[in-house]
């Protein structure tokens, strides 16, 4: 149940995601227990809990707003997906397509007022250049992590799991996926509770897998800090992730504290 700390260097992440051991399976009792604890929540609106809420234990201090920093991952990840699938030959072309797609959705009324596409549509050329430059930098950082990695994909979205009979949705981050591993790229530096966040990502990966299969490794990478943390994907760690989720739900007022 330990978390390994590794310095980043070329090939470091590839060495962390080598297939090791047999994956463990989330038993049906685990989601059932979560539903039992959170199923009677009386939250006035749907709450999304994930690594962020577990690590911070509080709601964000400021309401969400789009900026280059908040948009770069969504755009960069979309571009990586197109690049890896072969839809585009270069990262530049992939980024241009992703931007065009977002702007098209905004122009045709498919994007909601607060969406990324609607925000991008309101920006002038210098603003868009700034956002796309941040997205490119993010994508290049991720591509560097895949150095010496033989097979990987870039999911279009994070993993979401709605807990039965509750107003709680769990969110698991995932930026790179290999056959058995999950890699989550984070900004800044790892906090003291980064391991808790990785356990939540592990839990959600297991809950959203059709057969409940857990990744054998979850790797959190903090490129700004030059560090990576590897968590081996055990059921015990997934259970700990569930306990962190419950604690975050209590802190967010979504669930009552256990008697």
């Amino acid at each position: 149940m330990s978390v390994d700390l590794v310095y980043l260097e070329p090939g470091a992440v590839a060495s962390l995601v080598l297939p090791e051991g047999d994956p463990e399976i989330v038993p049906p009792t685990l989601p059932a227990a979560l539903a039992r604890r959170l199923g009677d929540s009386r939250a006035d609106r749907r709450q999304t809990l994930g690594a962020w809420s577990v690590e911070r234990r509080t709601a964000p201090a400021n309401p969400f707003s789009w900026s280059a920093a908040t948009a770069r991952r969504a755009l960069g990840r979309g571009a990586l997906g197109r690049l890896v699938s072969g839809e585009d030959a270069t990262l530049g072309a992939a980024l241009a397509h992703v931007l065009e797609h977002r702007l098209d959705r905004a122009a045709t009324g498919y994007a909601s007022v607060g969406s990324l596409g609607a925000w991008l549509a309101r920006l002038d050329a210098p603003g868009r250049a700034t956002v796309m430059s941040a997205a490119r930098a993010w994508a290049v950082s991720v591509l560097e992590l895949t150095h010496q990695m033989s097979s990987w994909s870039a999911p279009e979205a994070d993993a979401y799991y709605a807990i039965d009979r509750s107003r709680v949705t769990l969110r698991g981050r995932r930026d790179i996926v290999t056959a058995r591993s999950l890699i989550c790229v984070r900004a800044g530096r790892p906090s003291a509770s980064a391991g808790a966040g990785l356990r939540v990502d592990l839990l959600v990966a297991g809950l959203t897998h059709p057969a409940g299969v857990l990744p054998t490794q979850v790797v959190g990478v903090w490129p700004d800090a030059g560090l990576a943390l590897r968590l081996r994907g055990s059921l015990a760690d997934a259970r700990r992730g569930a306990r962190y989720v419950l604690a975050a739900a209590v802190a967010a007022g979504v669930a009552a504290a256990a008697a």
Partner: protein
Amino acid sequence: MSTRIDEPATDTSRRERRRAESELVGAVRAELVARVRHLVAAGPRPEGTVAIALGADVGARGVVPIGTAPLAQLRGALVARLIPVVLAGIPLRDPFAQAVSAWRVASPGPALLARLRALDAEERARLRADVAGHARTLARSLVELGVPTGARISQRCVIPVVSTPVILVDTLDLVWSGPIGPQLLDVTTSPLGPEAATLRSRHALAWTLRTGRVPHASASVSTATGEHVADDVRASTLAGALDAVVAQVATQLAGAGA
């Protein structure tokens, strides 16, 4: 630590180079951790984290601090925001307005934004002219230096020194992959003084610690004069920067414990 890591031509020699680079990076990381741990153990344990801004010490010695030269601070922030605009090939028709647009998207700090709003008409006109002049030099310099359109901009380094409360903080204006390794470029609106060399070596250290790759070159360009200086990054460059950063940590820890 006095050898230069050059890019060899063959696969075998490339592997050798990578091995030498990996050993050098490992040695730099190990020495940094050992020396900072020693400093932390020798004094009273600081409360909370101790952030060491790799550019700040240079600023304290050679550059006017924030607050005393508001127009210079604003000019620097705005000119930096024009880098992605120039690299995207957008013509600089009104550099001041374009920089403000780009700056807002990048979530500027509230203090600097408030300072921009508080400028009177005279100050704003001066700043507008100033930014336009620097923007022309910036655009010309980036072309002359061959900075590719895909260069990474404003790369943050937030590097914890493991097992200590110390964090090294830096921001690199431009980073790109050259034919023989990463290249760093610091863009400053001041003329290049002696402190620019110190800053170049610190940027090289920060990038080495962040990525585990030793940059091929670390350069500075002044949008005030158009002057450009590039240093090859050698093991001795990193050793010098490491000594300076450890000294800064010692000073800051002493201040925190006082």
